[in-house]
């Protein structure tokens, strides 16, 4: 079986993504399991690692890059992210505020 350089490169991309994902997940779980910080800080770390991991998935598995290549996909994802931030952020602010004022 002949293995071309581009095949090698593609394989490495996936392998890298897989490895990074496992490591990032591991760190997340370790922070919670060993209670490495105070609860809020732990949650902050978990969220931060989740964001990194999402980027890793996007890059290595979904092949989204900043290059001109996948541009319409990228635009789409960025726009969706904006909408999601608006919706989720707005909802949290609004409903949590309501809850606080009604209890």
């Amino acid at each position, binding site marked *: 079986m002949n293995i071309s350089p581009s095949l090698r490169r593609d394989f490495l991309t996936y392998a890298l993504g897989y490895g990074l994902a496992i490591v990032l997940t591991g760190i997340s779980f370790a922070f919670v399991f060993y209670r490495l910080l105070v609860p809020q800080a732990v949650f902050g770390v978990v969220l931060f690692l989740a964001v990194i991991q999402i980027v890793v998935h996007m890059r290595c598995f979904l092949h989204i890059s900043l290059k001109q290549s996948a541009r*319409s996909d990228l635009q789409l994802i960025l*726009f*969706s992210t904006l*909408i999601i931030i*608006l*919706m989720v952020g*707005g*909802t949290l*602010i*609004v*409903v949590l*505020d*309501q*809850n606080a*004022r*009604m209890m």
Partner: protein
Amino acid sequence: MTIWHILLGRLTWSSLAFVRAWRDPTLSELIGAAAAAIAVGGAVVLFGLLTYLRAWRYLWSEWLTSLDHKRIGIMYMVFAGVMLARALIEAVVIRTQQAIAINNQGIVGPEHFAELFSTHGTIMVFFVGMPLLIGLMNYVMPLQIGSRDVAFPYLNSISLWLTIGGGIMMMASLVVGKFSTGGWSGYPPYTELAFNGGVGPDYWIWSVSLSSLGALMTGINFAVTIYKFRAPGMTWMRLPLFTWTSLCTSILMIFAVPPLTIATLMLAADRYLGMHFFTNDLGGNMMNFVNLFWLFGHPEVYILILPPFGVYSEVVSAYSSKELYGYTSLVIATMAIAILSFTVWLHHFFTMGQSAPINAFFGIATMLIGIPTGVKIYDWIWTMFWGEVRLNTAMLFSIGFMVTFVIGGMSGIILATPPVDYMVHNTLFLIAHFHNMLIPGMLYGVIAGYYYWFPKAFGFRLSEKWGRRTFFCFFVGFYLAFMPLYVMGLGGVARRSQELFDPTLRPWTIVAEIGALLLFTGLACIFIQLYVSIKQRHQTRVPVGDPWDARGLEWSMSAPPPEYNFAVIPQVSRRDAFYWRKKYDGAYRPADHYRDIELPKNSMCGILVGMGLTACFFGFVWHIWWLAFLGFAVAFGTAVVRSFNRDVNRVIPAAEVAAHDRRWLDRAAAARPIPRHLELTPENEGLAKWQG
């Protein structure tokens, strides 16, 4: 658990409107039964007529199974027309009730009245507004961007049939069972099992789900079409404005529908699986529903207004014989409205008790939308400036729109001020506001677009005389019907009131009633116009295809267009491509050479998937589980089987395309170019004279 129960779920005799009216013959029930009779009778007559005319085969093979975006667009509009007739009659009954029921019961009982406003609102938004606009976009948008079809024709057909399925459910609720009484927004906990155990809220949940599923797929379809299927040279800043608004509407559909899906799903989970999302007890919280619903609901109203904005842009420019003023501004304003519309949803519940800074933030965000909206209106006004304005039906509606819409905008800004909203929220003032947006905004736009593109789609013009009558009814009727509602709202009259207790309201309700009847007459005029126009079609034919001396690519082909739209995909080098081509004599020229054209074959998969899911959801409503399962199996099975079908396209040989195109070119060469002031005469064969 009897066999009947398994077979029919919770359907019983008394679910039938006729049986209810028989047992309890009050006026209200009789009206209900009459409506049911109209629905059933209409279906029977239609069925009989089609059988008598032996039209089934034609209908099936040319229309119902068609994947052609033009036919799908027309079917959307016909469907919306049917639903419109019902929702409009309901509106008239609502107004009549409020005119009569001052210190008495009026003609419909409380529960029936609640069904009326709920179905009226739901139908108008989901089964009139959206289908009308989706139909229009379906027909026009691919033509405008120089494409043979939408990106996913098969998906397009599924969307259509899902929407129609939702409409069928709405109609079914007239005959079997009752519809929800919770309004078009269906707020829990009122719509929870604890307070509404019947099938009403379930009808609402599932019919809205069908429609929103259809709208979501349409959004994806159109967005991809506009992104990827533009003719060469059709860059972003050369897109016609209607296409721009279609794009923004599609984006809104893609991102605004999911919150609705989630909200209805959760409500369904509460009702079917005993969960506690929005119940009063066990940690339910109805505020989440309200929040999710308006996360959808606000973008939804812009879904309804943006395409009409596109129509006005096209119509005003074409009939002012002039380039659109401020194209870039209009594009920016459209996008600004689309994005801002995701930041204002809270203005629908200023009175829910959140703190002042939050209310203030959303109030300001709402007002911001006024800026781009105003820009658009000014742009249309300046488009007429230095033009040659033909004051025909479409222009009358456009000018009527500008004048009236700003009044609704004014009441919108008033509502956006939280302290004032505390007073007029949930009153008739709000009702007046949004009808003031929807009727002069959306419906006038649809009528203008209908008048403008009708000759393109059918090859003959609509009657101008009846068009003007229609305009009169709609313009005067609107003011009479809804200005009184502003006044009553300021007087604290709550919306959704089945009975009023204050005789001083009577003059106002009577004026509003007259207005509603006038609007109803307006709709009648539309139908008469269609009838008259069909009868006179021999004098109004415009086969060459450019009756209005218009500017976009959609006018560069015969009327009606060939099924493949463009004999050769055009090369675009400027905005208003066809206008420049006419100017530099590039129009009506044969192509260098013609190629084979591949088009999707007709397919009955769309109708099967749509009707399958409809049956499934109908089973859910009535707890007829076998039907639900069967319906789902049909839908899913069809989709799977279709995915194994590799033979989905057919080819139109180049020779046929060439022959057809030549025939059209000969027709154009034989026609006499018509100057603008003669375009409403029988001389007009659809070839406009070049006049700058």
